[in-house]
């Protein structure tokens, strides 16, 4: 890691800082949903995968139960397992290093590592560790700041926090809408969730859209 290419270090740190700053939005959303500052910080330290954390908090904010919140968060966490599959042969670690590597196996660490492929495996490893560790540090610091700030504000709607949460989800969704298939799945899920909302317990409409993902990905098309 010490002889990592300068470009790899630069890429990793800029991603870490930018992504880490989203933690501000998470901390604020989490407290607005009813989690304490401590619980919000623990979600960032232990769960440490932004999409899942936002989903758990989003379901709770919408009045959903614990089971729906956990299910939505866990469905979003499946992709980290696939990232682990991709990274394990590159990292080649065991013992506590493997535990540490697993905890920082997220979108950003994997994406930076893969983007360093032309520079060789050493650069991939450096990109993974620096980005993963960097995001971990900044994400947790900013979560704390966001949680404390939101805690100080009594009415979330007065500060626009209730709109910041769906905007954050949209920001996470947007870059994934490149393919026609993704656009159709997104539109169908958006519609199904609203359609189910008046009729089933809160939280379930979100989890139910996993079936649209399964149906959409079952066959290869467009």
């Amino acid at each position: 890691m010490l002889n990592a290419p300068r470009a790899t270090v630069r890429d990793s740190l800029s991603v870490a800082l930018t992504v880490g700053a989203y933690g501000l939005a998470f901390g604020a959303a989490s407290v607005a949903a009813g989690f304490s500052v401590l619980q919000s910080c623990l979600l960032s330290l232990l769960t440490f995968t932004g999409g899942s954390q936002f989903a758990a908090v989003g379901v709770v904010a919408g009045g959903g139960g614990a089971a729906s919140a956990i299910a939505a968060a866990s469905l979003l966490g499946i992709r980290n397992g696939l990232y682990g599959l991709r990274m394990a042969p590159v990292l080649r670690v065991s013992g506590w290093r493997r535990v540490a590597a697993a905890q920082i196996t997220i979108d950003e660490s994997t994406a930076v590592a893969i983007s360093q492929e032309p520079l060789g495996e050493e650069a991939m490893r450096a990109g993974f560790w620096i980005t993963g560790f960097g995001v971990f540090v900044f994400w947790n610091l900013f979560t704390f700041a966001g949680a404390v700030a939101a805690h100080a504000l009594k009415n979330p709607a007065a500060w626009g926090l209730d709109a910041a949460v769906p905007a954050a989800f949209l920001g996470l969704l947007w870059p994934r809408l490149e393919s026609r298939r993704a656009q159709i799945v997104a539109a169908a899920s958006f519609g199904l969730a609203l359609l189910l909302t008046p009729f089933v317990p809160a939280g379930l409409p979100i989890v139910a859209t996993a079936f649209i993902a399964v149906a959409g990905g079952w066959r290869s098309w467009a």
Partner: protein
Amino acid sequence: MGVTAASLWVVVIVTSLIAFALKFLGHVVPERWLAQPRAQRINALLPVALLAALVAVETFSTKSALVIDHRAAGLGVAVVALVLKAPFPVVVVAAAVSSALLYHFAS
């Protein structure tokens, strides 16, 4: 609030355990288990479906009622910001500010 203080802790702890288990599994299971194209396609679409549903529900519902309020304006501004390729923090802040403004003027 549909969740009690105790079950918020359940959410924190169980979500964290499952999140770590999923990450760790990827590092230890044989690669062929999850490498089929179908599993990869579905996995790529899961965040798309769930995030789209979260956008819908968080913007257009209160408990089990469908509503259009200040949050819809915030989301509209977020869409414009994203179309203009604004960075993530700008998108979130623009949505929050416009929603808050409408909330104050409408109430």
